[in-house]
């Protein structure tokens, strides 16, 4: 007998009208109308602009033709890049907003956790907030009454339960919020990865709780861009790409294809003689990032070599320096590496030259980096190739059970002694 379908998503589309996003002042509304009249883009339009047919006029299709079914007891991972529509789908499943077309149907009690401790009020005590948060999550008072002792014990903050939570540390608030969430007991659980914050020990309890929920026949939809947590938790995965279902298969297959594509993207750029950046003296012909991993994946635990192909037309001395400037996705300079600092100077032969710089393993964090190349002559800027390539670093295998994104532009492996 086939498993019972408990979630049915059929042909769901969601359109955002760019003109109405984040519109808060009448003057903006007028400015937008005026801009449209003159055929200019809306000055306060949607920030995560996506090219191609996803965008038409002032409309943006965050989701298009998304259909899938989920059977009871399945643990489904939703993966995809930023802006692929994961959070939009999550919002639809959570009933925070409605689709533009299509229909989602679900059977049983649905709980959606996009955040822990939603609606906590700082002036109220921990105990009062358990009731408030529980009610916001759809629990009845009688239910909370019955679970109260268990929730308090689970949170591990019995001593402070009658203190206003504005005196709590952020970790304590998360514990309290998760303790409530862990006792929701829904048939269908929709979870965002941002849920799992806190220390490693707490993290393990979260995942353990989700796993036991899955084992006891609950249906779970888990949204993440961390492939290792998806693989460890889910049986099936859906890959969303530009608002559409790109793949829907076993978690192993989908994650493998997804990682392959992430690696294959913009980590190489090759120019022709006509359009190569540079000057009459020297030009950058190509730049590529090469992973030490046999499968070519970029991960936090593999070394990555940046290779530059130069064409030297006229430099006959040693006075040419190259710097790599590495930005994070958040536009922070993660680091700058200077060639001369590392290997000194030497005469440049005319013609083709190859320069390599290796970024060691266990230095980059998981996430995207953009690499710019700066050429210097006589200590001055000669030319800059802004954002020549970008690399998407995936989480490597880790010790322990920490599945969250680490904070920080970098994640170097440092030496500890005790």
């Amino acid at each position: 007998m086939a498993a019972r379908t408990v979630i049915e998503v059929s042909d769901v589309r969601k359109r955002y009208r760019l003109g109405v996003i984040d519109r808060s002042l009448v003057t903006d509304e007028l400015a937008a109308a005026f801009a449209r009249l003159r055929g200019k883009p809306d000055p306060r339009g949607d920030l995560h602009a996506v090219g191609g047919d996803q965008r038409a006029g002032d409309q943006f299709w965050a989701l298009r033709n998304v259909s899938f079914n989920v059977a009871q007891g399945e643990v489904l991972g939703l993966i995809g890049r930023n802006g692929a529509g994961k959070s939009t789908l999550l919002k639809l499943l959570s009933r925070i907003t409605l689709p533009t077309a299509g229909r989602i149907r679900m059977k049983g009690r649905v709980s959606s956790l996009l955040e822990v401790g939603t609606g906590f009020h700082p002036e109220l005590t921990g105990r009062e907030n358990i009731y408030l948060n529980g009610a916001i999550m759809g629990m009845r008072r009688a239910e909370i009454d019955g679970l109260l002792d268990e929730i308090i014990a689970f949170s591990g903050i019995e001593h402070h339960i009658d203190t206003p939570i504005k005196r709590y540390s952020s970790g304590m608030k998360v514990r309290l919020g998760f303790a409530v969430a862990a006792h929701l007991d829904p048939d269908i659980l929709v979870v965002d990865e941002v849920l799992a914050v806190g220390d490693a020990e707490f993290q393990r309890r979260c995942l353990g709780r989700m796993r036991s929920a899955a084992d006891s026949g609950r249906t779970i939809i888990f949204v993440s861009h961390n492939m290792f947590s998806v693989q460890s938790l889910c049986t099936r995965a859906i890959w969303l790409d530009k608002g559409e279902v790109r793949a829907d298969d076993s978690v192993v297959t989908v994650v493998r294809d997804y990682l392959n594509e992430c690696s294959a993207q913009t980590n190489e750029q090759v120019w022709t003689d006509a359009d190569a950046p540079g000057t009459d003296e020297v030009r950058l012909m190509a730049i590529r990032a090469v992973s030490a991993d046999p499968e070519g994946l970029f991960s936090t635990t593999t070394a990555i070599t940046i290779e530059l192909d130069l064409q030297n037309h006229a430099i006959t001395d040693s006075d040419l320096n190259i710097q790599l400037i590495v930005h994070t996705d958040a536009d922070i300079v993660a680091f700058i590496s200077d060639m001369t600092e590392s290997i000194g100077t030497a005469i440049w032969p005319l013609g083709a030259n190859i320069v390599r710089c290796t970024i060691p393993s266990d230095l980059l964090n998981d996430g995207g980096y953009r690499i710019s190349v700066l050429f210097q002559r006589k200590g001055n800027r000669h030319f800059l190739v802004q954002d020549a390539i970008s690399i998407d670093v995936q989480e490597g295998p880790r010790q322990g059970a920490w599945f969250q994104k680490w904070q920080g532009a970098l994640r170097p492996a440092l030496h500890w002694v005790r």
Partner: protein
Amino acid sequence: MDAENRSDWDVVIEPSRGWWRIDLRELWHYRDLLRLMVRRDLLAVYKQTILGPLWQVLQPLLTAVVLAVVFGLLGRMAPTDQPPLLFYLAAVVPWTFFANVIQRTSQTLVWNAALMSKVYFPRLVAPVATTLSTMVSFLLQLATFFVIALGYRVFSDLPWAPGINLLALPLLILIMTALAFGCGVLVASLTTRFRDLGFLVGFGMQLLIYASPVIFPLSLVPDGSLLRLVIELNPMTGVIEGFRAALLGTPIDLGLLPYSGMAALVMLIIGTLVFQRAQRTFADVV
């Protein structure tokens, strides 16, 4: 076949069509949340204050004292057969409720934006909770009125003598609440798109007090004047005059009340429908 299967599904998420979509059963299911939100509103505001909920009473009381001194004693606008303090308190208490409900409910969507972008609950719960918590303050203030009025009855040579009119009080409270709630949620729906309205409402309520008989009795405004027309068009006029008639036994033009009642009903329906429509995609706009 869809129609048959519909009952198998507990949650159906579809694009919104039509206007009349108020799931009262669902609202009822969330009554615990409603109760807790009212509690939160009442508790949280006065934590760490010395006088606590006493502020709820002091605010309108002091306003009434000031009005009684400035307009009653100096301006001689209050009728001489009534204690000026009671005359003003009887109007300030319902007016305070009306102004507070409109101001607070008009902000509920914006104030609860963080909450509403993270979790589903019937959005109508938020303004209803705000109205109910304001209602608690109102009842406290009304009780204060009766305490002071009894004081007048015992100690004053201008004694308080309420009549059978007092029985109209529940009806007046009903009209006042419907009117305030309707206006509040209507403004709330528009505020999601135009934040400017939030400021306009605060300022507008300060001005609107002059288009109502709070500071002066309606009888003081000349018949046929423009001001008279404006005041009579204000549906709160009937409520204020009604409160005075009920609490103090002052004469009232009975034609005002059906108009206020109708206006309240219309505002309640329009406000709720517009709100229900606005809240569906509210999370997309903030």
